[in-house]
């Protein structure tokens, strides 16, 4: 079996949308699934953190944060060159600067299935990389407009926004309670993880399938950006991974994180911070093109690349 079973659920969702099925997941389920995934990923990372000295991880924290901050600054001029308006370019850049938690989960599952080991605290990187790209994106939008930025509000929104809060909250709980302390809740937060991920991918398939019509509307730019940006960014991620001396799996995961685009935290934050940006454009690139690309083609690619680079 080459393709992970959870990917089939995504395809089922896309299919349902394309044939105009009336299949819908209730909104409360969508919210519940995303709360669950964020908490569970945080917890998992936290449990691993409880086993090692945090200080040894500071270089990784610094480097992944820097990566997230840098990506939008690199993407922005390129996107401007593609004739995107300033706000649009900043918004798209922010989406790719941030990360997709589900893409990360699919990549970890692929590594586990193929028996490629990776750093057990990898979900710490997800938590760290969620926010910086969004901040850079907003900064770019503001610089290009000379508009004043309410930094306090902004920092608050990003740091205490639902996704960062759940990820970091899970990390803390996992780190404090440790393996033994969290044992009684693992029947909910560990074993069902992949099944829940499958359901969430069904929902994302429905949403992504709905965006395919938009792909046509936005045309070549969106397809080009959505297909070219991820592999290019994966190189940057892999580079940082090599610099940090990560394992083969770790390099693959960092490549995946760099290549992935946020479609939960970023759209909400950018809508408020950069309302002039066309929300449909960013989300269509991130969820309609890059997300399927990454889970179908990208992840195997990034894993192969990591193996080549690390000789693993």
């Amino acid at each position: 079996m080459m393709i992970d079973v959870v990917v089939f659920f995504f395809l089922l969702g896309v299919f349902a949308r394309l044939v105009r099925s009336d299949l819908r997941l209730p909104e409360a389920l969508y919210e519940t699934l995303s709360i669950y995934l964020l908490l569970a990923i945080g917890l998992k990372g936290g449990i691993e953190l409880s086993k090692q000295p945090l200080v040894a991880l500071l270089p990784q924290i610094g480097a992944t944060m820097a990566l997230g901050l840098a990506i939008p600054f690199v993407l922005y001029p390129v996107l401007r060159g593609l004739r995107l308006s300033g706000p649009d370019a900043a918004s798209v850049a922010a989406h790719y600067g941030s990360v997709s938690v589900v893409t990360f989960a699919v990549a970890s599952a692929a590594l586990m299935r193929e028996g490629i080991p990776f750093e057990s605290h990898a979900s710490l990187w997800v938590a760290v990389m969620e926010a910086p790209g969004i901040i850079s994106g907003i900064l770019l939008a503001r610089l290009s407009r000379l508009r004043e930025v309410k930094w306090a509000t902004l920092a608050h929104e990003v740091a205490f926004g639902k996704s960062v809060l759940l990820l970091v909250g899970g990390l803390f709980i996992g780190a404090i309670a440790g393996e033994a302390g969290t044992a009684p809740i693992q029947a909910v937060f560990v074993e069902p993880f992949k099944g829940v991920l499958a359901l969430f991918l069904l929902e994302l398939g429905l949403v992504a399938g709905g965006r395919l019509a938009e792909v046509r509307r936005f045309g070549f730019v969106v397809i080009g950006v959505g297909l070219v940006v991820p592999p290019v960014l994966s190189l940057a991620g892999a580079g940082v991974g090599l610099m940090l001396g990560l394992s083969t799996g770790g390099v693959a995961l960092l490549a995946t994180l760099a290549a992935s685009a946020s479609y939960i935290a970023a759209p909400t934050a950018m809508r408020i911070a950069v309302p002039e940006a066309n929300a449909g454009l960013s989300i269509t690139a991130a969820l309609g093109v890059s997300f399927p690309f990454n889970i179908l083609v990208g992840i195997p690619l990034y894993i192969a690349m990591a193996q080549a680079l690390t000789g693993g």
Partner: protein
Amino acid sequence: MALIKHPRMLLVIIAEAALEKQLVADVKRLGAHGYTVYDVRGEGTMGVREGAWEADRTIEMKVICETAVADQIAEHVLAQYVPHFGVTMFFADVQVLRPHKF
């Protein structure tokens, strides 16, 4: 049996859910004594919004207030949000029984 009814304005704002927090602050700042919100779905010039996920959610807000307050809120929304967000607004004349409340 003689209920005395007092005219008030009902302002209805249908907007992207991302605006809820700001709209709540706005209507209170501009003089409304209350508001009611609920989740809707629909379609307009910005396309279909099904509310299946976060950025696709739409809310409808009702504010009962004096005409002057409704006008101020509407003007603010028009200036602040309409240029960049999906927003629909309308006014309706209604009657209330406790005029001090609105």
